[in-house]
């Protein structure tokens, strides 16, 4: 299969969706006219292709961006809005949690809100007000679906699924992936929400992650293979709905679980994964679950400090070794 950058794969999904369906429009800060004159950015060139009616540069107003999506979606449009950096999801959180996730329920099932929110995430040397992964918040909000791809094919396929899903979906894009290449199919090839991918089969331990952390997990698995340890790596791809079956099935074979994500550990998504193991996979567990995650601190700015913060292959490998 051809290789493309993740940023380009995302743009393919946006382009396809907009070509296929006039109900799809984009809105966000700097998604049309952008300071980034870079073809690897997902929305590069879309304003020129689709025009100002369908590509809306908004004022710096995150709550309004989310409100726009909520209101427009129930009017029959398929909004795809962007929150520039993950920490700013706080500003949109009332609209997402109390409205996007609840209005269908409040209506007694009469209305629906088929919106998509793309959130840009990642640790990129800008400090804690630009870098703060909060996927655990969104996963804890009823009525919202949540995807978190790790590669170009999934970034494209999950986004296509999100756009045409009848419910609100939030999709987290780790910006570090924009610059990475990988195979991705051409055309409208969707990756279903709620289906994990076994990125590498293994027998001795299961590592479950999503986003950039999957790449670190795969690296750790290679490292451990050299030591004769066989690690299964599961890429969740979608956090809500969550593919429990794939996790529990893997656990039933390996008996050992390591979770990994870039977000902080305490009450992070890894806690839910560990809890599922302790609750539903207890009979399989041969060793303690280990969570690899950011320490419970804000993301620091200085390069060696940020490096200290980041989960990486070494930390994952050490975690696996600790429970063999």
């Amino acid at each position, binding site marked *: 299969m051809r290789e493309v950058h993740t940023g380009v794969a995302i743009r393919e999904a946006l382009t396809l969706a907009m070509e296929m369906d006039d109900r799809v*429009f984009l809105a966000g800060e700097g998604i049309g006219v952008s300071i980034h004159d870079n073809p690897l950015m997902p929305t590069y060139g879309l304003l020129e292709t689709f025009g100002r009616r369908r590509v809306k540069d908004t004022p710096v107003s995150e709550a*309004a961006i989310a409100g726009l999506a909520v*209101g427009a979606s129930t009017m*029959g449009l398929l909004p795809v809005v962007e929150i520039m950096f993950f920490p700013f999801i706080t500003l949109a959180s009332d609209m997402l949690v109390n*409205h996007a996730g609840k209005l269908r329920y409040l*209506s007694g099932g009469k209305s629906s809100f088929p919106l998509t929110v793309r959130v840009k995430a990642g640790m990129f040397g800008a400090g804690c007000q630009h870098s703060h992964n909060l996927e655990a918040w969104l996963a804890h909000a009823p009525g919202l679906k949540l995807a978190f791809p790790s590669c170009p094919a999934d970034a494209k396929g999950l986004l296509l699924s999100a756009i045409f899903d*009848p419910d609100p979906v939030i999709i987290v894009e780790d910006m570090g992936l924009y610059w990475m290449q990988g195979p991705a199919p051409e055309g409208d090839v969707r990756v279903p929400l*709620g289906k994990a991918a076994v990125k590498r089969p293994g027998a001795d331990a299961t590592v479950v992650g999503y986003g950039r952390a999957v790449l670190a997990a795969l690296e750790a698995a290679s490292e451990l293979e050299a030591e004769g340890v066989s690690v299964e790596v599961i890429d969740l791809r979608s956090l809500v709905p969550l593919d429990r079956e794939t996790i529990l099935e893997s656990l039933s074979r390996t008996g050992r679980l390591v979770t990994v994500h870039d977000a902080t550990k305490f009450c992070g998504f890894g806690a839910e994964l560990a809890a599922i193991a302790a609750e539903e996979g207890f009979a399989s567990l041969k060793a303690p679950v280990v969570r690899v995650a950011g320490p419970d601190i804000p993301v620091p700015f200085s390069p060696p400090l940020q490096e200290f913060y980041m989960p990486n292959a070494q930390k994952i490998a050490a975690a696996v070794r600790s429970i063999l």
Partner: protein
Amino acid sequence: MTAKQDATLRRTVLEKMYLARAFEDCISALAAEQGRLPGMQILATGQEAAAAAALALGKDDVMVTNHRSHVHLLARGADPKTLLAEIMGKESGVNHGKSGTLHLIVPEVNALMTSTVVGASPLLALGAAFAQQYKETNALTMVFFGDGAAAEGSVHEAMNMAGVWKLPLLFVCENNCWAGAQSFKEHCSAGNIASRASSYGMPGELVNGNDPDDVLNTALELASMCRDGRGPALMELTTYRMHGHGEYDKQHYVDPAEIEFWAERDPIVMFSSRLEQEGVLGEGQAEAMRREAADKVAEALKFADESPYPAPEAALEHVWASPEHI
């Protein structure tokens, strides 16, 4: 067309005002009976002239409202039966008991979204108005919010974006002099809300919110500007909540003279006598309207009372539009 010329529309306004008053009188009476209604009851008694704003809308226009919504919804044509059933938490309620009185949503009459998060409605309306512009319809969105809500950042963001994009969005601020137990001047240091419209490049009108003619004329005028693509507009209705914030609110913090002042300006009393004086209503017609409203509400009460509660497990329904999961 001006409202003065349209006797039918003015009669309809009065009819809806009677209906809303009767509906809320019924809730007030029920709320006074211990254990008769679940949760809190928030009434718009005294603010019925807002019905005229809702009646300035066409069938395809969208309405977005808030926690104090009975007048808006009934004016728009919502069925008192299913509204009251919802307020009681019954299965036959317009939202199957999921919502209750605080966020009644009636998509059937294009009352598409309701929020009890103060200040949120204008953001929801922003999205609806955007969709109308995007689809190049001739429709507009009208959103109701309170004077207290105007302090929320969300309202500012909605007005700003609507102004920049020239969306067909009519902001209706019902300034009923209070936000909870806080008087207007304690939360706003400008004399009114309407004049801030200029910050967003839109017209702002201050109207007598107890005078349905004023409300109707201004709403029709601003609505037609919105429809013409001239962008959003703001109207502020000066009015009063006669029952306090909610039915449990004894208004210990309000000067009784203030309540007295507004009681003398009851919009229903004033409007019905004006219509009678002008000959728009014949003798006995107002009284007939009032009785008809009472009958409708009695019927609604019977319907709601006789309806069963939803089955407990029904709590799990309606979260997802896609096949249920998790």
